[in-house]
């Protein structure tokens, strides 16, 4: 057997060894540093973040691209693919489609925490826990107390007019709003 033939016969085992070494050397299972993460922040913070795979945590948090774009998902969750849902008590839920720019720059979501959204979300919970009403309905930080109460009462009336809450619930919430004391008062 010539040296060339010996080399020819040996190289498949050398090749297999090289492949094996490569596999062993790879950081399997580890998220590669610096690849594909998304920082999610919200105003206000401590909002619940939901992705296609389910609840992801509370802002601020960092998720991976694969959390947003999983390779497989249930068909029933297809609408959530590439989306971030953010929920905070008293704020309107916010959904956002993640772009490549978001992944590069991070995501900072400003939630709408006007009373309307709070009231829309609140009725069933309010009926059960009336004490939660004031905390669940923070108005704009710049609004005065009378302005906030007026807006809250207007929204409450709209909810009653549209039969989204019962007259008894409306009465109970109205009393709560009118009994509110200004901060520090």
């Amino acid at each position, binding site marked *: 057997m*010539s*040296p*060339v033939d010996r*080399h*020819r016969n040996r*190289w*498949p085992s*050398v*090749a*297999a060894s*090289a*492949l094996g070494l*490569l*596999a062993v050397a*790879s*950081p*399997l*299972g*580890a*998220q*590669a540093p610096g*690849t*594909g993460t998304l920082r999610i922040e919200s105003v206000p913070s401590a909002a619940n973040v939901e992705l296609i795979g389910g609840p992801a945590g509370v802002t601020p948090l960092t998720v991976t*691209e*694969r959390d947003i*774009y*999983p*390779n*497989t*998902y249930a068909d029933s969750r*297809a609408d959530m*693919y*590439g989306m971030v849902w953010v929920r905070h008590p008293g704020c309107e839920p916010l959904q956002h489609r993640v*772009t*490549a*720019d978001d*992944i590069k720059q991070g995501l900072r979501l400003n939630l709408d925490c006007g009373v309307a959204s709070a009231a829309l979300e609140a009725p069933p919970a309010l009926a059960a826990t009336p004490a939660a009403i004031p905390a669940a309905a923070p108005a704009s930080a710049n609004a005065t107390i009378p302005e906030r109460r007026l807006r809250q009462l207007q929204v409450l009336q709209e909810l009653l007019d549209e039969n989204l809450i019962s007259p008894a619930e409306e009465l109970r919430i109205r009393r709560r709003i009118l009994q509110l004391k200004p901060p520090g008062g």
Partner: protein
Amino acid sequence: MMQGTGSVMLSRLARAAALVAIGMALWMLSMRGASAMPEFARRYNLSCAACHSAFPRLNQFGEHFAKNNMRLPNWMETSKQLGDERLALPDHVPLAVRAQAYVQARQGKTIDPVTGASNYAATDFQAPYLVKVLSSAPLSKNITYYFYAIFAEKGGNGEVVVEDAWFSYADLFGSGVDMLLGQFQLSDSMFPREVRLPFQDYMVYRMAGITYDRGVVFSRDVGPLAIQLGFTNGNGINANSSINSPGFGRPDRMFDNNSSKTVFTHLGADVGPVALGVFAATGKQRSATGPAGTAMGLRDTDKRIVGLDASGQLGGTVNWYVQYLWNAWDGFLDADPSRNYRWQGGFAGVDWIPNDRWAFSALYNHDRAGDLAHTHTIYEGLAMSSLSLTSSYYFMRNVKGIIEVNFDFLNKTTPAGRYFTGHLSKENYILFGFDTAF
């Protein structure tokens, strides 16, 4: 002796040069920025990860995207806003590039089946292996186009080959039927070769002649069934001839070489966690004639193909797939036109993608020449039994380096007849290289 020592030296030098080249290229690639983005990612401002589990392999959403006429619902917003609702011009020229370059060490040879003259290159710089320019865009609510052209594929410098090139029309006349017209692969209805992770091919598709052809394919989902029905010329994508009157050329050209068409269908359905499919095709092919069957004959012969495919996932990181094809080539060889030839083959593979940096693949091709064995023709070469193991490392989402080792399990044979046919050289190889799209 001197010659042997010289060859070993040459081999060492080539290996050293390859290592230096790989090192240089690795370093240069690691210096590149993240600005490289393939066309769909650019258009929709999405990460490649949205559609690929590991480039070029599609994930579930990527397959949905491809099936959905290659667009997202907001495609119109990505068009140039010209104030004309009947004009959806892409706001940039929708081009992307894919390029591959490899260094290979192998045992395979090129052997002339008539004379037995052979060429052998233990190491081989296959760089560039190909440079491919791709383009696709939605043009209207229903119509999308897609094509790619390959420059200098596999060393064919001076050549440009257009492979996939088609228009698709979604929801034809509101029927729910999608139509695709152009050049495509019949085998795409099973496992698209272009999105496989290994360098090694799905060989049975090439052997059965169900890769590129010109035609039309209709698709529709009926309940749990995904149905495809297609018609093609059946003579590939290279042939054409001038129409003349007679001998005096007319401007038009004839792409087909006979009136018959290849008809194919694929039925697919999910059965639990497994995607199952049945493929069938029937058509004509030109007979094989001449020394060792190397020339195309004048007779149109019947060919039929039946296939079964299955695929699934394990644990979210492992994808497996299996393909079987049965082939009937009636009267194929001019040497014995009364004889019908049956042969079969297939492949099975696993892709394991543990994270965003690594992908590992195993692909086993197994084909038997069947009735074409011992015919002293090149079709004895249908026989194959090889395992390819591939490691892919992703420098970026769209830039990967690969190492692949191929183990050939077939025993070498010696020529038994007048011609140099059969498995005359082992086909082990090891390959290093790069594959990128931007």
